[in-house]
């Protein structure tokens, strides 16, 4: 055996390289605390969890879900209702995180049970409709959801509290990074499990999978529930990081499309791909655009004089172009799950 091949196995895999990149903000924070690198990069991690959720449904199982924002909202609001003092529950932040996941899974089953028999593009529309209905409910049932105010103040997820009862930015970043690593590890194992194989079988050919004895609807339902649970986890993480569920309009169609961009640009069905997609899309959306806006604002430009000069106005354009260009040039995304001949979709 070539001794070099043994050495080669020490070379980091794509996934390990990405986690090394995701550690960078911690070092930057240690050297230049004033930049606030950890807080700025946290959205990437939260949206990576959302991407993992959509990846289970769309990447592994081949079902297009355009309502992931709704599941994210369900996670955020469950987390809020369970922890805030105006409601009688007031359980701690960590148990609330778990319950939010379960609530998401339950919502996923409730939506999936009647609709999973529909063909792919109809399912996409139904999930889109679900997203809009959830937004309307959050906005209009003010007794429970506090309408456009949102539920606040929400507790943070704290491991080593300092004198103000909070984690330092580095610790809170690392906590979420650990959650992301755990989810990524679960995904890698799930891919190779019986359930994961059943998902890909259903994606590649539903009829053939059914003929081979895979229970098609139950398999799809599992994907839906699991994906919804992860989206809700992302929602709860997002809300606790922000300290508020924010206003219902945050969980709009554009958020679902952002999640779709993350999964499609990175590579459908690929764990490393989701992380790359999150780094690119969220990095652009909530770091580069925000940063550019601040710089331009400080330099005296502002969006009211010239609509093109405001970077925030380019958001939809970038999301749309990312989808079209990926579909044209690299239908398998930047890091495809495996070298296959056709598109994964």
């Amino acid at each position: 055996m070539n001794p070099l091949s043994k050495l080669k196995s020490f070379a980091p895999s794509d996934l390990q390289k990405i986690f090394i990149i995701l550690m960078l903000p911690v070092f930057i924070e240690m050297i230049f605390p004033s930049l606030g690198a950890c807080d700025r990069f946290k959205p990437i991690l939260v949206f990576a969890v959302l991407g993992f959720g959509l990846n289970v449904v769309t990447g592994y199982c081949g079902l297009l879900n355009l309502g992931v924002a709704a599941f994210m909202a369900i996670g955020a609001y469950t987390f809020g209702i369970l922890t805030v003092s105006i409601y009688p529950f007031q359980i701690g932040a960590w148990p609330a995180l778990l319950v939010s996941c379960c609530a998401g899974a339950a919502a996923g089953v409730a939506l999936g049970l009647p609709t999973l028999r529909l063909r792919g593009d109809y399912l996409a529309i139904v999930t889109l409709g679900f997203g809009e209905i959830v937004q309307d409910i959050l906005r209009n049932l003010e007794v429970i959801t506090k309408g456009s105010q949102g539920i606040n103040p929400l507790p943070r997820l704290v491991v080593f509290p300092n004198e103000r009862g909070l984690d330092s930015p580095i610790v809170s970043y690392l906590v979420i990074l650990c959650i992301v690593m755990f989810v990524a590890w679960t995904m890698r194992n799930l891919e190779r499990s019986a359930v994961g194989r059943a998902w890909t079988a259903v994606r590649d050919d539903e009829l053939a999978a059914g003929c081979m004895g895979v229970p098609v609807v139950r398999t799809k339902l599992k994907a839906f529930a699991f994906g919804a649970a992860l989206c809700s986890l992302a929602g709860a993480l997002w809300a606790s990081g922000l300290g508020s569920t924010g206003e219902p309009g945050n969980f709009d169609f554009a958020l679902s499309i952002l999640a779709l961009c993350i999964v499609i640009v990175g590579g459908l069905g690929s764990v490393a791909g989701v992380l790359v997609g999150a780094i690119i899309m969220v990095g652009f959306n909530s770091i580069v655009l925000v940063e550019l806006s601040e710089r331009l604002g400080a330099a005296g430009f502002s969006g009211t004089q010239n609509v093109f000069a405001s970077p925030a106005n380019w958001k939809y354009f970038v999301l749309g172009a990312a989808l079209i260009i990926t579909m044209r040039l690299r239908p398998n995304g930047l890091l495809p799950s495996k070298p296959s001949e056709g598109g994964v979709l």
Partner: protein
Amino acid sequence: MTDIEVLIQQLLTGLSNGMIIALIALGYTMVFGIIELINFAHGDLFMLGCFAALTALGVSGMVDVEPGGIASIITIAALFIIVPTFCATINWCVDRYAYRPLRNSPKLAPLVSALGVSFIFINIGLFWGGLPLEVFGYGSAAAAPKNFPALLPFDNLLGDSAIFVTWRELLVVLVTIPILAALLYFVKCTATGKALRATAQNPTAARLMGIHVDSVIGITFIIGGALAGVASVVYALTYNTVFFQMGFRVGVDAFTAAVLGGIGNLAGACLGGLLIGLVRALSDQYIATQWTNSVVFGILIVVLIFRPSGLLGSRTREKV
């Protein structure tokens, strides 16, 4: 107003809105019928049409014409030519450059591409609203709704009756019905229409019979775009407001209408449009305005679950 008059008024409003929805639903249903693609960008194409109409008014300076006068009639007639041409051109280009290259890819690839086109259209609408034109109101933010000049008079055609019928409702009917008749004639009685139906039935067989499938699909997109253009002029004249995010909502209504009537079926799209218009009007009146969107989506979901082929559609088997 008595209860019954309120009901009649709502039914009238619902029918006239329903006709606008039907015009857009036809664009969805024709494209779906021929290439099985949900053209997400269609609603936003309608929005761009509204902006084109407003810009045409602003550039030509016909903003302050007297409602109902000769000048306003000529302006409206010109809009009905300019805007559908504009929308048809854009729709054809979208098909040519975003969908046609993906014709042989798996089914979800063009759908994702359509979502992308929709978002680019929304962004174009946002930029368009920020152009330094007087009709857009120089200083107002790009995202703010723009006022469309009132070219139609507000007078009640029924005199002193409590029920209100204006030129707006009449225009919708006068424009929509001839267009639908012309469309049905085109699809049922001309050679191109026959080619269109053949392609919808079986593209491969149609190609073998010497039909140029790509240009037939192009024609479908041109017709769908033109109908969206007509709908945007009618909408702008009726509601007098233009807004960069309006395409999403109207598009969803229209898609629901197309599914409700049976997607791929022209008469079904019209029926569905009228029904959705009525449901919206009645729900606004008797349930609550803020729940109307949920009601429409609820109907969509229920229809898809219990009768995926719609009211007039025929049940087709999924091909292996």
